[in-house]
C-alpha cells in the first residue's frame, strides 16, 4: 500500500459528428486533400465573421444531458488568444467563464467497485489545423512547415472532470465509459487512436489522509486507453520518487512518449501562456430554449447503464452478458430487435455473443457493416425449435448465411441439411444399424442399457447427422424391444 494518494482530473476533447464546421459551412470530412475543406471564414481572412453551427450545440447539449449536467440558460463564446501557424485567426473561439453546461457526473466501475466521477463542465470550441514539418518533427529546427486547414474549425466538445479520479486504472475506466456513452448517444465516434477523442490529464499526489492537493502536472499526448494508463502510471511513480528524494514537483506540462512509456517536461517558457480570454464580440450568447432542450432529450433514449440494468432484470442475462451486449449501441439494438421477434433472450444473447460475434471478430467487422438482420437470426433459431435443423447444423447455416448473404431458408434447403423427422426413413436407418452391430445389440439385451447411446451415435452417423435425435432415441428403444 502506497503512502501517497493520487489525484487525477481529466480534460477530454471530443470531435462532434457534424457535417459542417463550428463556424462556417465547410465539410468536416476526414482524409480529404490538404486545404480543400476551407473557406474565407475558417482560414481567417480579414473581415470574416463566425456563425455558430446549431447541430454542434445540439450534440453538446445531448451530451450534457447524458452526463446529468445543468444546461446554462446563457453561455458565452470567448477568444483564447495565442500565436501559432495552425491557428489562422491567432485566437481559438472557445467557451471560458460561461460554459454551455455545468455540474454533472458519470459512473465508472473498477474491479467490481462502482464510483461516481463529477463533471465540472461541458463546453464547445473549434479545432486548430494540422502542421506538417520538413526536416524535423517540430516547428523549431524544421526546414519548412506546411499547414493544412481542413481540420481548422471542426467542432470540439470539451468535457472537464472533477479531480475525483484516484488511480490510472480509474482514469482508463473513465475514458472507456465516456467513450462508450458518446458512441451510444451518437455525438462522437470517439476513437482515441484517430484523434476524435483526446484527453489531457492533471495529476498530483498527496500523503494519504491529507486534504491539501499536491502540485499538479499536466500530461498531454495520450493517444490510447493504454497510453492513459501508462502515462499516468509513470507520472504518479515519478511524483512519488521526486518527493521521496526530498525534491519538489514543478507545475508544468509534460508530454507522454508512447515508445518509452514515460513523460518528459517541456521548457517552462513554452507552457507559460497568458491567453487573454475575453468574450467573442462577433457572436451572441448561446441561449437554448427549454422546448429545444426537451426535444434533444427525447433523441437520447435509454442510456447504456439503464439498458444494462434492464437486460439483467427483464431479460435475465448475467451482468457480464449484459455488459457485452451494451458495449456497442448497434449490438444492443440488434439484440433488442431479435428478442422482439423471438422471446428467448438468453438463447438470442448466446447466439449473438457466441457464433455471431466470433464471425464478426474473425472478419474484423461491426454488426452494422454486414448484411445480416435480427429477423434472419430468429429464422435460424425458430428452425431449431421446429426441428427443421439441429442446433449443430444451425451453426453451419449461420456461417453460410453470413458468408453468402443468401436467405436462411435457401441455405437450409440447398445444403440438404434439413433434419430427418420422417419415421419410416429413420426406422430404415435404424434397421441397417442394428444389422451391422449384432454385438452391442446382444449386450443391450443382456441388460447393458447404456449401449443404446452408442447405437444412437451410429444412427446419427449413418444419417450424416440429419436424423432427429429425439426420434432416433425413441424409435431405437422401440425397435430393440421388438426385436
Amino acid at each position, binding site marked *: 500500500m502506497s503512502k501517497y494518494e493520487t489525484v487525477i482530473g481529466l480534460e477530454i476533447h471530443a470531435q462532434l459528428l457534424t457535417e459542417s464546421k463550428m463556424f462556417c459551412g465547410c465539410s468536416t470530412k476526414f482524409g480529404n486533400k490538404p486545404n480543400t475543406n476551407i473557406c*474565407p471564414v475558417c*482560414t*481567417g*481572412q*480579414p*473581415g*470574416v*465573421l*463566425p*456563425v*455558430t453551427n446549431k447541430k454542434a450545440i445540439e450534440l453538446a447539449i445531448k451530451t450534457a444531458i447524458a452526463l446529468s449536467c445543468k444546461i446554462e440558460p446563457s453561455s458565452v463564446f470567448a*477568444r483564447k*488568444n495565442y*500565436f501559432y*501557424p495552425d491557428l*489562422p*485567426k*491567432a*485566437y481559438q473561439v472557445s467557451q471560458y467563464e460561461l460554459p454551455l453546461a455545468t455540474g454533472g457526473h458519470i459512473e465508472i466501475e473498477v474491479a467490481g467497485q462502482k464510483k461516481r466521477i463529477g463533471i465540472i463542465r461541458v463546453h464547445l470550441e473549434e479545432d486548430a489545423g494540422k502542421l506538417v514539418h520538413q526536416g524535423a518533427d517540430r*516547428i*523549431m529546427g524544421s526546414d519548412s*512547415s506546411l*499547414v493544412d486547414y481542413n481540420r481548422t474549425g471542426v467542432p470540439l466538445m470539451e468535457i472537464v472532470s472533477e479531480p475525483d479520479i484516484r488511480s490510472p486504472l480509474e482514469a482508463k475506466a473513465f475514458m472507456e465509459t465516456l467513450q462508450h456513452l458518446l458512441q451510444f448517444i451518437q455525438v462522437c465516434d470517439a476513437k482515441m487512436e484517430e484523434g476524435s477523442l483526446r484527453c489531457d490529464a492533471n495529476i498530483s499526489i498527496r500523503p494519504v489522509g491529507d486534504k491539501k492537493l499536491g502540485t499538479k502536472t499536466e500530461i498531454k499526448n495520450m493517444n490510447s486507453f493504454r497510453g492513459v494508463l501508462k502515462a499516468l502510471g509513470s507520472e504518479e511513480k515519478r511524483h512519488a520518487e521526486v518527493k521521496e528524494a526530498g525534491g519538489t514537483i514543478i507545475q508544468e506540462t509534460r508530454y507522454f512518449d508512447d515508445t518509452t512509456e514515460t513523460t518528459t517536461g517541456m521548457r517552462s517558457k513554452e507552457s507559460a501562456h*497568458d491567453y*487573454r*480570454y*475575453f468574450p467573442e*464580440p*462577433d*457572436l*451572441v450568447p448561446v441561449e437554448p430554449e427549454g422546448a429545444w432542450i426537451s426535444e434533444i432529450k427525447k433523441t437520447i433514449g435509454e442510456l447504456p447503464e439503464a439498458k444494462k440494468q434492464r437486460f439483467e432484470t427483464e431479460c435475465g442475462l448475467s451482468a457480464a452478458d449484459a455488459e457485452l451486449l451494451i458495449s456497442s449501441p448497434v449490438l444492443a439494438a440488434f439484440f433488442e430487435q431479435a428478442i422482439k421477434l423471438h422471446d428467448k433472450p438468453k438463447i438470442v444473447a448466446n447466439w449473438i455473443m457466441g457464433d455471431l460475434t466470433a464471425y464478426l471478430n474473425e472478419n474484423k467487422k461491426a454488426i452494422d457493416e454486414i448484411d445480416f438482420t435480427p429477423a434472419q437470426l430468429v429464422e435460424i433459431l425458430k428452425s431449431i425449435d421446429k426441428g427443421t435443423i439441429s442446433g449443430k447444423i444451425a451453426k453451419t447455416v449461420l456461417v453460410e448465411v453470413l458468408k453468402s448473404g443468401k436467405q436462411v431458408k435457401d441455405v437450409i434447403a440447398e445444403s440438404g441439411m434439413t433434419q430427418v423427422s420422417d419415421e419410416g426413413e429413420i426406422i430404415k436407418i435404424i434397421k441397417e444399424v442394428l444389422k451391422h452391430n449384432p454385438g452391442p445389440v446382444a449386450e443391450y439385451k443382456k441388460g447393458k442399457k447404456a449401449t443404446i447411446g452408442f447405437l444412437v451415435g451410429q444412427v446419427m452417423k449413418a444419417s450424416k447427422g440429419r436424423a432427429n435425435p429425439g426420434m432416433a432415441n425413441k424409435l431405437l428403444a422401440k425397435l430393440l424391444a421388438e426385436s
Partner: protein
Amino acid sequence: MHGKTAHELHSLLTNKKISALELTEAVISQIDKVESRVQAYVSINKDQAIKQAKAADERIKNNSNLTPLTGIPVAIKDNMCTKGMLTTCSSKILNNYIPPYNATIVDKIKAAGAVILGKTNMDEFAMGSSTENSGIHPTFNPWNTKTVPGGSSGGSAAAVAADEAILATGSDTGGSIRQPASFCGVVGFKPTYGRVSRYGLVAFASSLDQIGPLTKDVTDTAILMNVLAGHDPKDSTSVNLPVPDYQKALVNDVKKMKIGYIKELLGKGIDKDIKSEIQKAMKKFAELGAELIEVSLPSFEYAVATYYLIAPAEASSNLARYDGVKYGHRSKEAKDLLTMYYNTRREGFGNEVKRRIMIGTYALSAGYYDAYYLKALKVRTLIKEDFAKAFSQCDVLLSPTSPSVAFKVGEKAADPLSMYLSDIATIPVNLAGLPAISLPCGFSQGLPIGLQLVGQAFAEETVLRAAFTFEQNTDWHKQKPSL
C-alpha cells in the same frame, strides 16, 4: 455633373439626359484633375468602373432592375473586402492582399448596379482621426489641403467633398464616419450597431464597428442606407428587424420633435466658433417648431478612456491574424517562426496600430483584465444608461460632431492624446451602439463645421428626418470647396 447628388443624377440617368458612362468618365476626369492634391484613394479602378458603367447603361436602356444606385459612381473605404481587388486597410501589412470574397455591403452595392470607382484611403486599420496614420499616403482636406480631412474615413469624406465620387462608404468605430464628414463638409451617417452587416469589413473593434454612408446630402444618405441596411445571416450580430424605406423618412417637419442638446458638449474644450454655429442650429430647429431641452450625460467624461480600453483590447485580438503565415506582408529576414512573427509585424504595422495593440494586449492581460477591460465594460453600461435616460425626455440628441474644425497636417500627429480627445462627441455614441449623423452647419476660418444628431437604437428614421428638415431650411450643404 460630378458635382451633383445621386438622386439628381438618378433622374438625369433615367430620363436619358446623361449616360452612366458619361457620368463615370466625368468623375474619373475630376479624379485626374484633383487627386494629386487630395489623395483620397488608395487604388482606383478605372477599367472596371468603365465596364460597370456600360453594364449600368444596359440596365437603363432595357429599363430592367433599376435602382437609385444604378450607374452611380461609388467609392469604397479600403477596409471593406472587394473580391479580386486590393483591400489594404491602408496598411503595409496588407499591401498585397486581394480578398477571395466580397463584403456583404459590396455585394449589395454591386447588385444595385452602382459603379465602383476604387478604394479610399484611411487611417491604418481605421485607427486615427486624421488619415495621417495611413501606411500608404496621407489624404488632404479639399477645403484647405494644408489641413487634414479627419479620419479614419478621411479618403471617403474627401472624395465626396472633392466630387471624386458621388457616394462613399465609411466605417465608424469611434466617429470615423462623422468626424471626417464634419471636417470635409459632407453628410456622414453611422447606423445603429447591428443595422448593417459587418461581414467583410476588416475588423478594428468588433463591438463598435459599423458601416455607413458618406454623401453630399441627407437624401443620398437615405438612398445608400436603403441598400446597406438589413439582416445578414453571415453576421451573427446583425439584427433581424424589418428595414424601413429611409427615403420615406425624409419629411421636412420637426414640429413638436423634442431635441435634447447635450450640456457637456457645449462647454469647456469646444471651439468658440463651433459653439456659436451649433447654437444657431438650435435656434433654427426652434424656429422650425422643435422643442429644445437641455440634457446632461455625466458619464461622457469617462467615454474616451473607456473607448481606449475596449477598442484596443478587441483590436489586439482582431489584428493578431496578420502574422505573415497566410497572406499579406511576410518579412524576408526571418529565419524561424518567432522572428517571422516579430519582423513581419514590426515592418507591417505603423506606430498608432502598434500603440493600440500594446494598450489592448495590456488591458486583457492576466491581473489587469478586471481593472481595465471589465471596468471599461461597466462604464460602457453606465453610458448606455445615461443615453436611455436622456431619450426618456427627447427624440434626438444634438451636439457638435467635433470640438474643432479640421486641424493642420502634422499638428496633432505627435500628440496622440489630444488626437484621441477630438472624438469626445462621437465616441459615446459608438459605446451605446446608437445611430448618429453629422451634417454641415456652418464654417469657421473657411472650414466646415458639423452638427451631430443622435437617435435611439434603430430609430434611424427620426435622425434622418431631423437632419433632412435642417438641411432643407439651410444651404450649408450646397457649399463647395474650390480646388
